């Protein structure tokens, strides 16, 4: 189905109601925003040095609003495909709660405002990295890669990996090997996470014309790629131990959870038929969220404890 057909369907089928504050909040993808706030916070706490608590709150707020701006601009550009996908059909634009023009204005204002606020009030390295994050997500991932290549989430995953670097830069004013390692963990995590989702949602993506790996290269190739990236992820997740960013707790948690991750990825590779194949893919998808959260939570705990003792 072409974008134009879908757009006319939205216009004809759904009346434009008055938008509420909650619709604009939904436009900012609150669940993604919460993950961004959390990983940016870990970057800030793990970074050497200190930042005044008021400036730290302003930095986190700017990063959160910047992430929200990316979400709004993504929903503005993808309103046509959101309308035909089961997972996204209830978003504010396909439902007719917010017009595309409103979403565009809202996103642009928030993007510019968040970058300027972070740059002026905290530092310009962090501001520039936030601008890069928003630009990467909107222009590189949403507008360029998503509808063109099955590598969309591999390269586009960088956008979701930047927040801990932004948090780190807010405190230190720079980029270092530790913040690059935090970036790489999320970067390597993104492909197995989204491909596990794409395996049991492939018909949805196919209907919307998005060239996700299972749609373009088939389930078998996707399972092989999940294994490769899972191995790369688990190896990358052990890096903080070797550069002094993670302590003993982190070493234990990343090893145990990494083993579970690989086991689930192997199950996805082996169970290929029937409902069970969808079930194991969903298990990997859900576990991947827990895995990333746990790794960053342990880093947060270790560094917060070290700061408290000192």
């Amino acid at each position: 189905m072409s974008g134009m057909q879908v757009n006319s369907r939205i216009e004809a089928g759904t009346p434009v109601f008055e938008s509420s504050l909650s619709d604009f909040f939904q436009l900012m993808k609150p669940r993604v925003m919460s993950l961004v706030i959390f990983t940016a916070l870990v970057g800030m706490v793990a970074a050497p040095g200190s930042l005044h608590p008021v400036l730290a709150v302003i930095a986190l707020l700017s990063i959160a609003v910047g992430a929200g701006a990316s979400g709004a601009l993504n929903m503005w550009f993808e309103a046509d495909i959101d309308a035909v996908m089961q997972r996204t059909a209830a978003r504010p634009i396909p439902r007719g709660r917010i017009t595309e023009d409103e979403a565009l204005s809202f996103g642009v204002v928030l993007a510019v405002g968040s970058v300027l606020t972070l740059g002026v009030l905290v530092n310009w390295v962090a501001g520039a990295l936030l601008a890069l994050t928003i630009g990467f997500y909107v222009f590189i991932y949403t507008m360029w890669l998503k509808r063109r290549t099955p590598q969309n989430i591999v390269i586009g995953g960088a956008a979701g990996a930047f927040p801990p670097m932004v948090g780190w830069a807010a405190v230190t004013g720079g980029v270092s090997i530790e913040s690059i390692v935090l970036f790489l963990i999320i970067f390597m995590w993104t492909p197995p996470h989204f491909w596990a989702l794409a395996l049991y949602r492939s018909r949805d993506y196919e209907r919307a014309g998005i060239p996700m790996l299972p749609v373009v290269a088939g389930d078998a190739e996707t399972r092989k790629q999940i294994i490769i990236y899972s191995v790369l992820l688990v190896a990358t997740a052990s890096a903080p131990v070797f550069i002094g960013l993670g302590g003993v707790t982190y070493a234990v948690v990343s090893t145990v959870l990494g083993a579970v991750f690989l086991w689930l990825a192997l199950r996805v590779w082996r169970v290929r038929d029937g409902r069970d194949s969808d079930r194991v893919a969903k298990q990997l998808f859900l576990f991947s969220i827990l895995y990333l959260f746990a790794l960053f939570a342990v880093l947060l705990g270790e560094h917060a404890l070290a700061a408290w003792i000192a």
Partner: protein
Amino acid sequence: MAVGDVMTGDNNETQDERDRLKQRSRSIAIALALLFLVVLFYVATIVRLGPDVLNRPM
């Protein structure tokens, strides 16, 4: 005047009223956001200047 015209007129009035209310709430939201930014920049400036900002020798 036909019944349809009256109904269309009512609909237009309702639509105008709805647009006016929407514009009003949007203006209030923008005003609140600007006020928040003013306070935010003021507080951040004081924090960046440090505690000795008012301690100037005469």
